[in-house]
């Protein structure tokens, strides 16, 4: 799966599930701030990523995920790891 496809799928479910305007999602924007995530919203985020991409995430994966770009990188690396 290409990075563009990852970005497209990710942005689509983020817009739908977190009810944000498309222009809120910018590669270098802060993920938590832009999506207004609280501690329990991350449960939704992880479930969405895992179900959309068929990958499994762990707590440590999110250590360096601050921006949307970081999130796309994380998803990409997980997909390539199981490919």
């Amino acid at each position, binding site marked *: 799966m290409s990075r563009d496809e990852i970005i497209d799928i990710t942005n689509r479910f983020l817009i739908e599930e977190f009810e944000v305007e498309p222009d809120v999602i910018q590669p270098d924007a802060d993920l938590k701030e832009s999506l207004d995530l*609280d*501690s*329990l*919203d*991350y449960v939704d985020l992880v*479930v969405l990523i*895992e179900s959309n991409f068929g990958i499994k*995430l762990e707590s440590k994966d999110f250590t360096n995920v601050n921006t949307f770009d970081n999130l796309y990188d994380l998803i990409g690396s997980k997909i390539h790891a199981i490919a």
Partner: protein
Amino acid sequence: MAEWEGKSRGTVSGYKIFIFLIKHAGIPVAYSLLIFVSLYYVISSPHQTAAIYRYFRRQRQYGFIRSIISIYRNYFVFGQTIIDKIAITAGLEHKYTYEFDGIEHIRQLAKNNSAGILISAHVGNFEVSQYFMGEFDKQIHLVTTDEEQRAIKSYLANIMAKPKTGFIVLNDDLSHVFEINRVIDEKGMICFTGDRFVEGSKTMTANFLGREAHFPAGPFLISSRLSTPVLFVYVMRERHRHYHLYARTATFAHRDAQSLLHAYVQSIEQILTKYPLQWFNYYDFWKA
């Protein structure tokens, strides 16, 4: 907006005193100590006392004298639930009687080998619920934000025979996210308390006991989105060391968190109508 500060009153040393009394003098003696402890809390906790007074006066429409008496009785019953929790966890469950109401809903979860989400509230004594569910061989994982209680839970875990309720504490490192997902993947039971939130949490509003109140959005958003059965579960204390578990299937539109919250509010109102003294949120719940 009224929010809980994230800490509950009570200290490890307080628990140690009660455990000593329960073990060496018996449960009734431990209860008798509450005559003084309850009075102490009425006087020494003005903010909590005022919040409970407003609950009785405004939400329950009690008169002045009845409200004052109810404050004391509320602290007393709360103390009894803590003593019961300690006693039951310490292996004295045979000193209590139990009654199941709606247990078929929990049996159905077990039969279907399905994960379940339980939503409770700070009413009654939810933490003893595991003792109603021994036959199902499923541990309940209670999601909590209660920082101060960690020391107490850790102390209890060290001295108690078989702690059966697991705790998932909301952490900045997001470990709770993966714990919740793991439990659901393993067809376990997650329990949220749907009535408290801390600063920074998203909230939803609903009319509760005649006035608008804020509730944490997280438990209702998650529960409404996952394809997992949701039950409202309360364990209420009755006279003569009798506990009554109520389990009700939540009826709501899929992905409609507001309808789930509405159903939840109605269920707590029904429980509190029957057990008005067992409301244990000691802060101004209805503050705008």
